[in-house]
């Protein structure tokens, strides 16, 4: 049996929009989620509220799926954008979805916000979603799980179709100065998939995908991983951790910013856990084998 461990998401982190922040900004919702300039205002306000070293974009996990045709409920100041109704009833239909056009829609606005924040010398963490998160908007998960068992080759094609779009999104973001590209796919965690299927996903998709994604890392850019993904890589022997000593104890986010150029991949903690401090001065780079 695989040794993939699970990472438990907790509720004492920075996730979410805080009403006490939004009411002072004079923004209207869900309009504020739709435009680059208001995204910037909101993102900076949340950064200040959370005491984080970086701004986060976007405020949901539906941007990629929407850009591929997904139908979104844009929400309000309390609950952000989320899936509305599924557009596919078979996995075959997923392969017919269009490629993302980065010059239109909300995804264009997100990229515009990235560019504005860069111009204001802000450090930005762009949250990008993995295939299970994207699929959650597009199709009922039961079709996905069934196809993974009955039509694994077809599902591999689906994962890579989505994966290529995510890579393109990351490239576009990098062009606009995003320094921290954060990849997560929590609905595809071992707690949902079980060890056998989780291992298969690492083999078929996550590992080769991240081999491509890490090519984006350089002196200005680092790829952050959700700890669930890190555990999946470690548990399947596809990665190891390399310790880098910091000069002083630092909040994890701050450490990531400082490690750009020295580490390609990081993921020892959830980036949303802004209060997490590396007291022992040990930063752990995720090194793919």
């Amino acid at each position, binding site marked *: 049996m695989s040794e993939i461990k699970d990472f438990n998401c907790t509720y004492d982190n920075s996730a979410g929009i805080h009403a006490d922040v939004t009411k002072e900004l004079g923004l209207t919702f869900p309009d504020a989620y739709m435009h680059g300039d208001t995204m910037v205002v909101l993102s900076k306000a949340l950064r200040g509220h959370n005491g984080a070293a970086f701004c986060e974009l976007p405020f949901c996990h539906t941007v990629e799926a929407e850009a591929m045709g997904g139908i979104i409920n844009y929400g309000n100041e309390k609950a952000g954008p989320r899936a509305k109704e599924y557009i596919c009833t078979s996995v075959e239909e997923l392969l017919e979805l269009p490629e993302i056009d980065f010059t239109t829609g909300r995804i264009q606005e997100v990229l515009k916000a990235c560019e504005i924040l860069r111009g204001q010398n802000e450090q930005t963490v762009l949250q990008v979603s993995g295939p299970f998160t994207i699929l959650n908007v597009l199709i009922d998960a*039961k079709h996905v799980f069934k196809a993974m068992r009955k039509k694994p080759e077809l599902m591999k094609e689906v994962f890579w179709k989505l994966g290529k779009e995510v890579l393109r999104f990351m490239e576009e973001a990098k062009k606009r100065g995003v320094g921290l590209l954060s990849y997560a796919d929590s609905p595809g965690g071992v707690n949902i998939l079980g060890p056998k299927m989780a291992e298969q996903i690492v083999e078929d998709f996550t590992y080769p995908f991240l081999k491509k994604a890490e090519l984006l890392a350089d002196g200005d850019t680092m790829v952050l991983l959700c700890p669930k993904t890190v555990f999946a890589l470690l548990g399947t022997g596809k990665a190891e951790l390399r310790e880098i000593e910091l000069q002083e104890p630092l909040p994890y986010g701050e450490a990531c910013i400082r490690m750009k150029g020295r580490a390609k991949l990081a993921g020892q903690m959830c980036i949303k856990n802004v209060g997490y401090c590396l007291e022992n001065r040990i930063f752990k780079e995720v090194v793919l084998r």
Partner: protein
Amino acid sequence: MSAKEELLKRLSDGVVDMEEDDVAETAQEYLDAGYPAFDGIMEGLVDGMNRAGQLYEEEEYFVTDVLLCSDAMYAGLEILRPYLPEEAGETKHKGVIGVVEGDTHDIGKNLVKIMLETAGFDMIDLGRDVPLRKFVDTAREEGAEFICMSTLMTTTMGGMQDVIRILEEEGMRQQMKVMIGGGPVSQKYADKIGADGYSQNAVEAVKLAKRLLNITNDGLGMR
């Protein structure tokens, strides 16, 4: 093994093996042979689902496996259910279940619903991204005894507390049990918001519902 027992075993095995088509075919064969639908459901399909639940508890099966088992079970139920004899006066314990507003992750909720239904509860599934008031309104309209809420997102957990508050405001809290679950949810959180119980997984949710509703016998027949 008699011919009936053999068919029941095939139904049960088909559910455990997630073979939806085989289960549907066997269910039809079972009916054509003149055997009672009730036994086919209880000793075939539900038996298979209980075995799947056991495998889940033992960590042999995982969420995705149990979901596929349930697809097979429902394929069989669709064929057998119309042939159940009418029984007047039967009451089932009724619950309302859904994913709270703002969240669309419904895998865990679906699993809990399936296991509760398998255990004989009558579950009203409100789906995902459910407006908070709808939990309360539906529970009132349907005469439910308990509400189950889940969320995978930290941002939407607060909605669970709002539902409890609405129940209190409407004077319904005393007669309504509230169960919560989901990735970031814990017993600590349940205690904090005043929920009656938390369960970590679907099998535990069934035990919790039975405990909260003081159900001690196994008289919950799936119909």
